[in-house]
Each structure stands twice: as structure tokens, then as C-alpha cells.
């Protein structure tokens, strides 16, 4: 075995407690003002531009980034608190979440200075939305099979091809995508892809909505036809995207969004069951709470190790593997227990609506952002099996 797994018992530092109170108070105000309904995760329109700006005004976007780019130089653990409180409240974070979690950090690392100065402060203000252009009709988990071409031309590149399953592309202002700049080599099939910043809503980009089984339209097909991208929108090394893709994954894989996506059904079940549960309900709830507690401890532990400058790549993949399976199973376990809820329970209808939505959501949870199979391959490599 390469190395023992580590899950240090990290606690959130005291500055997080004040922050948590502020976030809860802010969300309570937003709920009272009618910005969103925390009991309705399935609402039609989760794009809330004004809400995004108010989150930015609070200083909760780009929290860990340098101040000169509009960031706030706070810790990953503080960002963790904001993320989990928003998630549990079912706040409409779609507009800023991707930019804050991963697009911003990629720009910080690979974009030219003038691009950083132009775009990062706007993310921090909650003004702009990002999409991620990875999957294509014939390349999903196998990222390095991407075929959409970037052909060199005067002052930039011409893009031709199609990205698919692209969440939020219909509202996004920018996308970070990988395009093929060279063919793969015999020695390295990962060679030849380059990471680009794409300005959306420009000529040569057509966004076609794709409906999902939940009834939502988050997915899109994005078709590029001779779309021009200037040279300074290249992010990092030409042909070398494969070297850049892996380092940020630990942040992306281990956050609270990886086990709390369907958490709301557990809260609603507890409400429906009431204060005096029968033995079956009590045991069922107890086991589910023990799981969510354990998942959170694992996730906080990885966040703390990242903050301390460690690289818990295998641990982060484990968090996403078992976290997403847990959040996928949760609505089914809650459904089993809900069968025993009294007809008279006041929130019975809310619970049933939530269950319908969560059960429809469940299949995607172990696919998005790295499938279970890909994650287990990474874990197996970490164990010295590959």
C-alpha cells in the first residue's frame, strides 16, 4: 500500500461560528423577502441574479482569493461554512457556484494578468455565471477523447464542434472548456488538448436546451461554428490541459455539495415523524443522521487538510464516492420510512413532492463531476492497484 488514509479530526475554527450566524441571518432575510422557498428545491427558475449580487456584496464569493482580484483572503474552512449553509437552505446558487468553486481558481492559476483583473472581480461581485465545457457527444468520462477543434488563426483560434450536458450554458457569461489543438501522440493519448476561456453570447456559439428527467432545463448542447477565441484566452500550456486538470479536483470532489444535494428530504421526514417516533422510524432516522454526520466529518477533514497545504487526493475521491452514493440512496430510505408517517402530518404533501423530485434527481448524483467508476479507478490507483 502506498500510504495510509488520513482523516484528521478537524474542527471548524471559532471565526467560522460568527460567519455561520451571519450566513443564516442573511438566508433567513432572503427567505422572508420571498427570494426563494427553502422547501422547494424543484422550483423552475433557480437563476437569481439579484441574489447572486447580494451574496457578492456580503463578501462570500471568491472568499479565498487575493484581495487585488476582489477576493477576501479568507480560509477554505470559512468558504466551507458558507457553501454548506447555502446548500442546506436550498438557496439559488446556480449563477455563481461553478465560478466560485472551480472556474475562478483555474483563472487564478492560468489566465494572463489582465484577464484576471477583468473577470475575477466580477465573479466576486456575483455578476457573472460560468459553465464547464468538458463532455462531448462522444466523450464523457473519457475526457481525453474530446474532438472539438481549436484551429490556429490570426490572433487566436477558430472553434468547431459540440459540447454537451453543459449545465447553465444558457445563462452563462463564460465557459472554461477543453478543445483539441493537436492530435494525441502514440506515447500519450492525453496530449493535444488545451484549456480555453470562452466568452459566451458571441457569434459562432449556439446554445440548445436539453430537458432532464427532473423536468428542469439545466443541460445544454453548445455548438461552435468558426467561433473566434483570442490568443490571450488560452489557459495554461498549449496541448497540455491534462497536466492541469487533476490538481484542483480535490477541491471539487470533497465539498459539502457532494453529500447534501438531497439532504432536505431528511429534514422533512423528521418534521413529518414528529417528536415521538416509533422504533422503526427512530432507528431509520438515527442511521441516516449517523451517516450524514460521518460524511460531514470526512468532508471537513479533507477541507482542513487542503487548508493546511496537504494533497489528500485519494481521500477527496473517497468523500465523493461514498458521499454521492449516500445522497443518492437517501430519498429512497426516506421514502421507506415515509410510508409509516401519519396521514395527518401537516407537511405530508411537502414531503411527498420533495421525494418525487429527489428520487428523480438521484441518478445524476453519481455521474456529475466524475462518475463512481472513474472515482474508484482513482482510489484504486492510490491504493497501488493500477
Amino acid at each position, binding site marked *: *500500500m502506498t500510504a*495510509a*488514509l488520513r*482523516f*484528521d*479530526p478537524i*474542527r*471548524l475554527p471559532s471565526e467560522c461560528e460568527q460567519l*455561520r450566524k451571519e450566513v443564516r441571518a442573511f438566508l433567513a432575510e432572503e427567505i422572508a423577502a420571498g427570494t426563494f422557498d427553502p422547501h422547494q428545491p424543484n422550483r423552475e427558475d433557480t437563476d437569481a441574479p439579484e441574489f447572486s449580487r447580494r451574496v457578492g456584496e456580503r463578501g462570500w464569493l471568491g472568499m479565498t482569493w487575493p484581495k487585488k482580484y476582489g477576493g477576501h483572503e479568507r480560509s477554505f474552512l470559512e468558504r466551507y461554512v458558507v457553501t*454548506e*449553509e447555502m446548500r*442546506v437552505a436550498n438557496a439559488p446558487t446556480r449563477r455563481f457556484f461553478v465560478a466560485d468553486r472551480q472556474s475562478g481558481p483555474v483563472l487564478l492559476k492560468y489566465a494572463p494578468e489582465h484577464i484576471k483583473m477583468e473577470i475575477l472581480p466580477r465573479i466576486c461581485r456575483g455578476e457573472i455565471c460560468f459553465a464547464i465545457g468538458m463532455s462531448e457527444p462522444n466523450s464523457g468520462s473519457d475526457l481525453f477523447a474530446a474532438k472539438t477543434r481549436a484551429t490556429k488563426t490570426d490572433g487566436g483560434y477558430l472553434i468547431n464542434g459540440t459540447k454537451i450536458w453543459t449545465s447553465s450554458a444558457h445563462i452563462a457569461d463564460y465557459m472554461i472548456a477543453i478543445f483539441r489543438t493537436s492530435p494525441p501522440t502514440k506515447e500519450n493519448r492525453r496530449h493535444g488538448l488545451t484549456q480555453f476561456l470562452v466568452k459566451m453570447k458571441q457569434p459562432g456559439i449556439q446554445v440548445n436546451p436539453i430537458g432532464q428527467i427532473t423536468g428542469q432545463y439545466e443541460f445544454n448542447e453548445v455548438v461552435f461554428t468558426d467561433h473566434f477565441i483570442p490568443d490571450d484566452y488560452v489557459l495554461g500550456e498549449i496541448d497540455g490541459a491534462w497536466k492541469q486538470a487533476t490538481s484542483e479536483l480535490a477541491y471539487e470532489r470533497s465539498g459539502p455539495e457532494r453529500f447534501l444535494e438531497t*439532504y432536505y428530504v*431528511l*429534514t*422533512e421526514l*423528521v*418534521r413529518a*415523524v*414528529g*417528536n*415521538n*417516533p416509533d*422504533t422503526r*422510524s*427512530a*432507528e*431509520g*432516522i*438515527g*442511521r441516516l*443522521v*449517523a*451517516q*450524514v*454526520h*460521518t*460524511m*460531514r*466529518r*470526512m468532508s471537513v*477533514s479533507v477541507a482542513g487538510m487542503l487548508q493546511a497545504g496537504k494533497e489528500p487526493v*485519494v*481521500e477527496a475521491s*473517497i468523500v465523493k*464516492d*461514498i458521499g454521492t452514493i449516500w445522497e443518492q440512496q437517501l430519498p429512497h430510505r426516506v421514502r421507506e420510512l415515509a410510508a409509516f408517517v401519519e396521514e395527518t402530518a401537516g407537511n405530508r404533501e411537502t414531503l411527498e413532492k420533495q421525494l418525487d423530485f429527489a428520487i428523480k434527481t438521484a441518478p445524476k448524483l453519481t455521474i456529475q463531476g466524475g462518475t463512481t*467508476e472513474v*472515482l*474508484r*479507478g482513482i*482510489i*484504486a490507483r*492510490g*491504493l*497501488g*492497484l*493500477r
Partner: protein
Amino acid sequence: MSWDWHANFKSGNAVAESENIVAETAEKIFADLADAQTINRDQKGKWKAPLWQALTDAGLPLAWVPEDYGGSGASLAEGFSVLSAAGRFAVAVPLAETMLAGWLLAQAKITSPGGEMTVVPASPKDRITINADGSLSGRARGVPFAKVAKYFAVLASDAKGDFSVALVDAGKCRIESGLNLGGDPSDVVTLDKVEPVAIKPAPIGFDQARLMLMGGVARSLQIAGALESMLEISVRYSNERVAFEKKISKFQAVQHNLARLAGESAAALAAATSAADAIANATGFNDEVFLEAVAAKIRCSEAAEKGGGIAHQVHGAIGFTIEHILHRYSLRALAWRDDFGSESYWAVELGKLVAQRGADELWPLVASR
């Protein structure tokens, strides 16, 4: 001063350095004298006496007893790290039990005698009562290592429900021998008007649930340790065993099973070390500490089933033999689920607590630290 986890003798802040030294001492003793392969071949149990002697010389069985009461005065964190190591070696001597017994006696400022001890009761459903004449009566099932213990640390309650801690001579109790799944003693202990060697009131706030939670966290650490070892030996075996002309570690189905075992091992480790840390740094008892302790027992017990099952699957028939060491870890991990309240028992208790607090108080509980 009200009761706290530290028996009022040493503050909780874990001293990382010394914690490592105590754990390293334990690891070295286990590696030298409790090697799984050697133990597994020794049918007569000749390894037990030298191991116990070495542990005693190092002050480990009474790690949680202050020096004034006959122990070595280690911190809770140091003691927990010893239990993790004991789990990694699936140690089959009453080390955890003697540590818990010493900790319980120290709660009431009773000096620990030398030798093996265990705690009575070891299940949340059994009760030992204090009779009007001061003697003790009651029946406790599933008491680990009762048969080899010289003394019992007993938690008993009187007619008013007030708890006392007693030191009881094992020879004065009736013991019906039994074995747990791992083949270690798990006995029924009956006290029939037994006169204790010493008895003192438990500190205010201490009750049987506190004892069961402390025992449960000890077992959680042991289970997590056993799973770490099961992962290690399963990975090693998969890199050695050849089938269909290649190492079985090269089959994706096997890789994914081992990744799942890593996940179960990781979940157990995270839950158990978090609970241990919570108790080591707690000044009293509250819902947050309760959640940490019971969640660890529930999650580690579930991991023992799922993880142990995968370890056996990877090993195939060889892992099902007495000659192979896998059962030392897999069966003990399963057996430890039953001590100090099973996962289903604690899940009911946790579910009741969550329901009483109400739906909107669940997330604040989970996100409290």
C-alpha cells in the same frame, strides 16, 4: 464540580507529540508480541502472558488512571490512540476492557488494582443494583473477558436511581463462559448480594449511558483499526494472487471492490477518530458529544459488515480458513459491534433525540463543529 470525561485529573487538549509516543510504544509491543501470523499458529495461547506483561510494564492497561490511583496518568487522547493500534492488531487480550475499567474506577476516585479487569455491565439494557445493605445484585450479559478478569469495575444504581462505582472481586461473582464471534470471552456475570471491595458514588451527571458511550467509542476505534488492517492485507493479497493469468488486482471488478473497502475503512476511521477527539476535548456531556459517540458506533458497525465482507470476497477461499489471519480482524470487528450497545440500539436512541429536538434543530446539531 460536575462530572467530566477526564476523571478530573488531566485536561483534554491532546498533546500530539506525547500521544504519538504512547501509540508508538503500543505499536511496537503489538508488532513484537502480537503478530497476527504467530498468534494464529499458536493454538495454546502462549503469546498472551508475555504480551500482557509487556503492556503492563509500559503502563498501558491503566493508561487512563491517574498516578495517585495506581495508573500511568495518560490523557484520553493518548489512550484512544492505543486503542486504534490495538484494533489494527486485532489484539485479543483485555487491554481496552482494563483501560475502561480503570477509567470508570478513577471517575469515583477508587484506586485500581493490578491485573486484568473488565466493566460490568457492558450492555445498556442490563442493570446492577445496590441493595439496602450495600451489597450488589444483577445480571450482565456479553461482558468481554469476564472469565480472565481478576476484578470488575461495576456501575450500579440504588433504589433512587443514583449511580455508584464499585470495585468487585471477580471470584465472588458467578460467571457463565461464552465466546464472541471472534472467539474471545464474552460472558454472563451474575452478582448475588456481592460485597464490593470498594464502592463510591459516581460523580454528579455520570450514568450508564456515559459508560456505554465511552465503551462504544473504544470499540469504534478498534473496529476502524481492524478495517485499516483488512484493507492493507486485502490490497497486498490482490497484488500477489494470480488468476486468469494476471494479478487479481488488475481486474476492474476487484479494484472497485477494494476502493469500496477503502471507503468503508475511511468512514470508520473518520467517525471513530472524530468521536474520540470530541470526548478528549469535551468538558461535559451534551447532544453534540452524544452524536459523535453514537454515530461512530453506528457507522463503524456498518463498516465492519460491508468492509469485512469485501475483504473476504477479495481473499476467496483462503480467507475462509483458520490458517489465514483475515478472520482475526473480520470476526472481531463483527463481534465488537455488539458490545456497549449495538448499532441498531444506538440508532433508535439517536433517532429519538433528533425527533425530540425537532426538524429545524437537526442541521444545527450536525453542523455544530
